[in-house]
């Protein structure tokens, strides 16, 4: 009964995972046969200025993404953690970009941000300001794409924080009110500390999620201009399937995997400690 899962796990997950590792030690372009080159791909990677930029881009993207979704997600969750009319509608609306494909999101925002015809630039011109090349300026493109991804995913983090807020017992909040704590004190001294476990888990989810930006970059900038929005996941695609440098692309994919693994392991260790400390 476990046969489908086992086949899937072996052929499409574990097998390729080892396969990638093996390929990363080779020089291979699919046309000729693979030659073993040891760690040469990894050496090249760390000396390649374009890879260093890619790693830097990934880091900047992640930083903007993680800070953005955590701050906005928590803010929206706090706004919605009340009983007020229309809350259900707003929660549903804020979550809707999460289910929409990143491709459609990327296309619509490219349209809104485009020079001359885009509504945002027309607005700037109408206000007497200069238009901005949101996606054409190598300095701006990466933060702009990251912000669009924040726009798309904030609703997801809002739901996670809402779940955390609803786990805080009302009795604690009531006790704080009885003790005369004002709104700000209640938030910083009661809500936030009680939310700290949740915040840590959300942070981990957000960091791992921040690496998954292939679709939005494909739809908005294709890594450009001048490599400015090339990130690790996109670099694997470009090297593997545009330049057919399978060995090098696999090495990049293992670097990516190592980043994800480190975050996951930290998460795992801290989680274990907390579970112990509760008893």
């Amino acid at each position: 009964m476990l046969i489908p899962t086992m086949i899937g796990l072996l052929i499409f997950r574990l097998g390729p995972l080892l396969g990638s590792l093996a390929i990363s030690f080779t020089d291979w372009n699919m046309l000729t046969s693979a030659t073993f080159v040891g760690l040469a791909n990894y050496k090249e990677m760390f000396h390649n200025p374009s890879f260093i930029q890619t790693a830097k881009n990934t880091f900047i993207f992640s930083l903007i993404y993680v800070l953005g979704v955590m701050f906005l997600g928590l803010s929206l969750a706090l706004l919605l953690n009340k009983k007020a009319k229309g809350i259900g509608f707003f929660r549903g609306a804020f979550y809707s970009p999460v289910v929409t494909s990143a491709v459609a999101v990327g296309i619509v925002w490219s349209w809104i941000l485009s020079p001359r015809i885009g509504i945002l630039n027309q607005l700037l011109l109408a206000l007497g300001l200069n238009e901005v090349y949101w996606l054409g300026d190598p300095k701006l493109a990466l933060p702009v794409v990251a912000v669009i991804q924040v726009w798309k995913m904030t609703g997801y983090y809002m739901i996670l924080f809402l779940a955390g807020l609803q786990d805080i017992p009302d009795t604690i909040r009531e006790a704080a009110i009885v003790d005369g704590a004002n709104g700000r004190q209640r938030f910083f001294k009661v809500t936030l500390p009680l939310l700290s476990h949740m915040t840590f888990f959300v942070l981990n989810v957000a960091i791992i999620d921040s690496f998954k930006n292939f679709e939005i970059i494909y739809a908005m900038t294709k890594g450009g201009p001048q490599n400015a929005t090339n990130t690790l996941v996109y670099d694997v695609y470009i090297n593997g399937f545009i330049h057919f440098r399978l060995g090098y692309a696999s090495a990049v994919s293992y670097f990516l995997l190592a980043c994800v693994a480190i975050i996951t392991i930290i998460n795992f260790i801290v989680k274990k400690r907390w579970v112990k400390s509760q008893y």
Partner: protein
Amino acid sequence: MGKVPVLKDDTPMKRIRTVIYYAVLIVAGIITLFPFLWMLLNSFNSEGNIFSVPPKFIPDLLGTKQAFDNYLRIFKEFHWGRYTLNSFIVAGSSAIGQLFTCSLAGFVFATMRFRGKNLIFALLLGTMMVPIQSTIIPEFLIMMKLGWLDSYLPMIVPSALVGSFGSFLFKEYYENIPPEFIDASSIDGAGPFNIYSKVYLPMSSSQIATLLVISFMNNWNDLLRPILYISSDKWQTVTQALTQFQSQYSAKWNLILTGSVLSVLPILILYIFMQKYIIESSISSGVKG
């Protein structure tokens, strides 16, 4: 819910706070929904009107006989019907496949004992974290060897055969079913597969709905597998076709936006009706997984 702050219009102060509260929500709502609305409005613009400066908020085709011109063109000239059918087949088969593999796996992990069970389950959950880019190159080579390129198979099979989130979802639920249920039906001489299909599966309708919806959405929105595996027009999914459209007809924004509307519409309809399941699953996959 004891003293969750309830907004009442008691005093002027509170009334002002209520106004500010809703103002903030409405601004956030506009920022969230405006791109969807702008996309929808512009899909009713003609090719000339879409570039007008300043932008026209009332599309010129709306209310005329040509209102659905962009929509008709995209189906007639650009095979949008075929792409939509492909997306439904790919996303639908993946979802149904996942339902079977995941519910079976969840049942096995929850009810049976065998050596290596924990290891297999750990690997299943562990590989959930692995970015697809770390396995896609060998996966591509496998698909090439199997001769599956340019068909539905490479888009369906890998996701239909194994699902970490789904297996976890069913395992969690089945573990909490009281053992009396198994015993009663075991006495009747039912084998494990019968117990699964007659007792467990019918009890998990909410998990079934969740998994079907999530899996359908993920596969509908997927881009990497289609762009790697599909090169001929007739197998393209909606999501892939949209990116092709964008690069080939970069000046025809009215058609690109019409395609975008059509690509998100099925998912948004699904979302509106299945919101409860989708939102609950985002909590369980994020927090517990």
